[in-house]
């Protein structure tokens, strides 16, 4: 019966949610509009009157009516082809750069964007609610094995040191006891020689010798193991690319959404390296003369694709799917790739080792909220514990999740 009640509650909540959603949609949800604008429009348009690639959008609703705007967004080429005077002029004015078509945008989406544009111009930019906090920072670069080894090593060194001190003390005592008579007779021996002979004694001493040898062996083993662990780990790998593309400029200063170029990142296994046609969306007007951008032109003219150097290389035996982590898991790109917006040349920030993957799967909460897929799992989990449901709790450490 309880579950029935619960269902009721859930249903009414759901209904409320839907209603409020639609209510918002009536005159455009500025927050949703902002999201859409930043993802898809801000690469070419500013919300104010500034001209970027295309015209600034301030006052757009005064210039054109809603139906025209929607038609234009859905398929600008068709509007131009229809001979619309305003459209043709606009096209001519902006160097015949066609606007990317968004055929999927319905009334609601367009209204949202327009609402945002309005809001952005009406008031001094409203403080956007802080971006979703990035999940807990990753547990450093040290793998579990390395830490453990260090502890053992330090302990061993301390023990060895203590043993050495004790041995030396015994040695001293023994020499004192056995050579008590000679002590007076050797008064003439200089301090240096004394040190020399005691050093000789030290070297001749088996225990000391073996202690030193052991020390070297342990240090050597540690160095070798560290080296071996490092094989295939290319953390910090930042190869020179054929075109010195700056993420700092594009993702940082220009704030272009990652998914604008890496189109597959929410959809599929690969985030994808952008095709030259995506570069051309902006660069057929912006900075055409730059020698680096000329390289893109050359590639297109010669019909020779650009050979970028791959920075992040997972071994073939591991299956990794971006959309599972970005779309479903709701993780930000920075989680694994580091602060790309600050990188002039992209480098591999994470180790990309299995330990690193597992570590994250142990620590990260499943992004289960609002996803009906996880409902049964969440119910089962909450029955047994009050802790949050981690990825490891739903089989995230199983072999065949990544290896098949």
């Amino acid at each position, binding site marked *: 019966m309880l579950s029935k009640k619960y269902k009721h509650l859930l249903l009414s909540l759901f209904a409320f949610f839907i209603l409020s959603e639609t209510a918002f949609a009536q005159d455009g949800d500025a927050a949703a509009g902002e999201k859409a604008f930043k993802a898809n429009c801000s690469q070419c348009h500013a919300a104010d009157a500034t001209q970027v690639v295309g015209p600034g959008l301030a006052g757009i609703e005064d210039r054109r009516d809603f139906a025209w705007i929607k038609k234009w967004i859905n398929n600008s080429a068709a509007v131009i082809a229809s001979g619309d005077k305003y459209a043709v002029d606009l096209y001519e004015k902006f160097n015949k750069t066609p606007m990317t078509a968004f055929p999927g945008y319905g009334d609601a989406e367009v209204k949202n964007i327009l609402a945002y544009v309005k809001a952005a111009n009406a008031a001094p930019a409203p403080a956007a609610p802080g971006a979703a906090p990035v999940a807990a920072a990753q547990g450093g670069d040290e793998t579990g094995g390395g830490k453990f080894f260090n502890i053992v090593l330090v302990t061993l060194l301390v023990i060895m040191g203590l043993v050495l001190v004790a041995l030396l003390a015994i040695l001293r005592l023994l020499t004192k006891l056995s050579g008590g008579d000679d002590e007076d007779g050797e008064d003439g021996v200089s301090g240096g020689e004394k040190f020399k002979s005691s050093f000789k004694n030290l070297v001749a001493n088996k225990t000391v010798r073996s202690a030193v040898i052991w020390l070297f062996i342990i240090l050597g083993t540690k160095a070798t193991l560290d080296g071996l662990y490092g094989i295939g780990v290319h953390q910090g790998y930042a190869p020179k690319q054929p075109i010195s593309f700056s993420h700092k400029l594009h993702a940082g200063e220009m704030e272009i959404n990652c998914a604008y170029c890496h189109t597959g990142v929410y*959809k599929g296994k690969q985030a994808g390296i952008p095709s030259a046609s995506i570069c051309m969306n902006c660069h057929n007007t912006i900075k055409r003369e730059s020698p680096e951008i000329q390289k893109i032109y050359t590639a297109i003219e010669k019909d020779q*694709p650009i050979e970028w150097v*791959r920075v992040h290389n997972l071994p073939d035996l591991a299956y990794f799917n971006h959309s599972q982590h970005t779309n479903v898991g709701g993780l930000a790109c920075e989680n694994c790739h580091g602060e790309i917006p600050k990188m002039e040349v992209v480098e591999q920030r994470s180790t990309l080792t299995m330990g690193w993957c597992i570590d994250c799967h142990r620590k990260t909460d499943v992004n289960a909220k609002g996803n009906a*897929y996880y409902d*049964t799992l969440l119910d089962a989990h909450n029955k047994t514990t009050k802790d949050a449901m981690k990825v490891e709790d739903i089989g995230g450490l199983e072999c065949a999740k990544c290896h098949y």
Partner: protein
Amino acid sequence: MENTKKRYWKGIEELKNDINVVKNAEREFNLDDVDGGTHRRDFLKMLGFGVAAVSLAACDAPVRKTIPYLNKPEDVEPGIPNYYATTYASGGDYASILVKTREGRPIKIEGNKLSGVTKGGVSARIHASVLSLYDNEKLKEPQKGGKATTWAKLDQEIAASLSKASSIRIVSNTILSPSAKSVIADFIAKYPSAKHVAYDTNGADGLIEGNLKSFGKAVIPSYRFDKAKVMVGINCDFTGTWISPLEYSNQWAETRKVSSGKHGSKTMSRHYQFETGMTVTGAAADYRGMIKPSEEAAFAANLYNKVITLLGGSPVSAPKVDTQYIDKCAKDLVAAKGASLVVSGSNDVNVQVLVNAINNALGNIGNTVDFGTPVYYRQGNAAEMNQFVTELKSGQVGAVIFYESNPVFDHLRGAEIAEGLKKTTLSISTADRADETAKLCQYIAPASHYLESWGDAMPKAGFYSLQQPTISTIYSTRQTEVSLLTWAGANADYQAYLKSFWSKNILTGKSWIQALHDGVYEVAPAVPAGASFTANVAEAAASVAAPKTDLELSVFESLALGTGAYANNPWLQELPDPISKVTWENTAAFSQKTAKDLGIAQGDWVKLTVGDKSIELPVLIQPGQAHSTVSVAMGYGRTDAGKAGNVGSNPFPLLGSSKTASNFWTGGVKVEKTKDGYTLAQTQTHETVMGREAVVQETILSEYLKNDKAGRYEPMIATSEGLKKPYSITLWNGHEKKNHSWGMVIDLNTCNGCSACLISCQAENNVAVVGKKEVVRAREMHWIRLDRYYSTDADLDSRTFSGYKAMEVASENPEVIFQPMMCQHCSNAPCETVCPVLATTHSSEGLNQMTYNRCVGTRYCANNCPYKVRRFNWFKYFENDNFDYNMNNELGRMVLNPDVTVRSRGVIEKCSMCVQRIQAGKLAAKKEKRRPVDGEIETACSSSCPSGSIIFGDMLDPESRISKVLEQEKEGRAFHMLEEINVRPQVTYLVKVKNKDEIVAKRSKAGDKKKHAAEPEHAAEHKAHS
């Protein structure tokens, strides 16, 4: 006195004081010819170099490039597959299919469920066709006289020659494409002396002619096996190779589905099969009789007589045959009047007339034989083809174009065609390689693969199907339609041609885009129609010859290779024949008795001689083979197919000019043993289950009607507290499944051994081809095997050595049962406990996971697996010249599924239950914030099964098909294999039910023992039987 010092020579060389003997006299071994004689210094050098190379290589990883599109196509997103609907139509084989492409390359064929013809079924051959696309032995550009040329030059020369040529012939197999036929018509309009001649290697001329004689209609009707309560096949492998096996096996399975419980359906068709060699259809039949090829006609006449007598008509005179089950068959046919069906694969017109007469007498015409919707799978015309050969030989043919056909190899008069080709002035082939025919032609204009081409098909009246390219042409090839249009001087844009042809003739205003998207376009089906029977039965019966007693050769089409057109496909070559389990070659199949009489045994090679022609083949002892016959598969013995395809021997020359050659048999065969000690590359050498009822369970319908659990073997374990069910005691903790529990149900009742699942799995999971040598060593890599078990005549209770030995021997005419066997994903998996490195572990979704990168190759798991489904990579099967199949060349590797690891040497692999598909399906659901829907996630095997015998799904989802079936069959047919060892598989089998009346004595004996106490009267009944 004689010299007492006897001398002995080790050999003639020593006696002659051969120079080598003298040289080597002091040496113990002759090391000169020892392979790879590595000396110490070389070894050290190599060692040093190796160490240096390894350490250098380890220093730095190679720079890997990532190359994006210049202009990314809108609908291609790297990593996300696209599916395109297209059509496979080759030599009359047809299926509407979906092609999975990744980054623009086709990698997998799936069935198109929108098709009303194939209903999502795809055969093994069609699954394998994607590999033929990446065959690097195909021609890479047009050829003239064996040398590469350009299309422009070739077109110019051919057009010039054609305009001068008289009597041009276009020789093809069946062309299902209406637009291609229109192209040919256009070509003929341009060159009026041209004529199109179609032939089929395994044609249905007899059937078509028989129908013309009987009903005045020269067509093949639609057969409705799904409406038949009793079906009879006379040398007709209708679920394997005859006319439209995909359609028929689906229909056949429809009538074989039974279910337990109060409301379960308990009706089932009865299937009789009378045949020479054992086929999958015969194996699936309830009653199977053996007939010699020469008895075929007499058998049909006798069956007619028995049926007509029962119906109160008057019999015709015909030679008597006394085949097992013929009386019973006639009785059942009459009882199911109007809902029975007799079919024959014979090319003998008289047989077809007699079969038509039977169907007519039974009132089946218009019911199970539907003339309202004729089918067009076989359009060859043997008479026209024979005339062509005669003309060719006499030099009357000016020019000949072989339209993707290879008659020199696959026509009975191939040798004559080869001879005659010398007399033509112009000869062109559009084959994809320089095959047996093409190499004799002046020009080869290589056709593109069907996945690179546009096209269409009309397999049945009212059923249309479109074909679209799924990849641009890999080599400089051109589809034949374009070539013909070019040579005819017409606009060679075939895509436009096709589109306008469709909008003009087929679509009648409907959307082209929609048709292209769906792959099929179907108009409302015609109403079933009958036809009036007009043939003279007595006349047909009068021309039936009396059966003969000498050794007869029967040539049949094998399920994997067909007529041999795709022989160079290593997947098909390594596909074990469902019955004989032989790979990589064809055999001469004899019955045990015949082999004994001839003094031959398996392991021998024999020379089969008919007249002055002979071929040599290895001997196969085939249970169920008619006595005094030998069966040989066609399609083997190619000489110019390629590295993988040139195996076996072609039996066609033996048929020669025999009168019955067109019906693929001949008498007067002489057998001569040539050598012995040969091992066939068979994947299963054990033939019977030796009375182990825990392995495969079956029953008969009459028993099943009484008891849902009939045939079930329910083991009990003896404990201190008495007998207990195996699952009630355990030392395992079990695995908690909170989210999903993936499982499979396999209905043994509808599985007919077609092997589509096997190839589908191979394509999906990058399963390596290992070659004949390795198959002999039992190292094949298939993740599914189709276990085929014969019944035995031996006394299953005889627990003596000789008794066991006898159990191994299959009956002369055994009952057959197929059991698809893959990893059972045990919940208490024996493999997991023995792995020293935890490379095989259990998932929370019920899967037994295999982690290749952790495996160290101890093979403990394979040893401990009760089902023997784990495969070990003895070698690196890719980029290895010793395994020169598709994975050894760049083009061939394009077929690999990028979502599945290519396994390296030294690791174990096995069925993963297509975990990559499960993960993809789950991800799709998660993205849409919902649970996966049943049917959305399918394994490669379950999605490809034409008879729907494999159901895959989530056993935790109460709405899933698998849950429903298990709920229904829990107290019925459902069983786990080897239940007594309590491994609790995720795979459940359903008991096989044969529609038989009486219990076969031998089966009951073993069953008796357990049932004695419970059912004493039942046991007594059995005794009376035996």
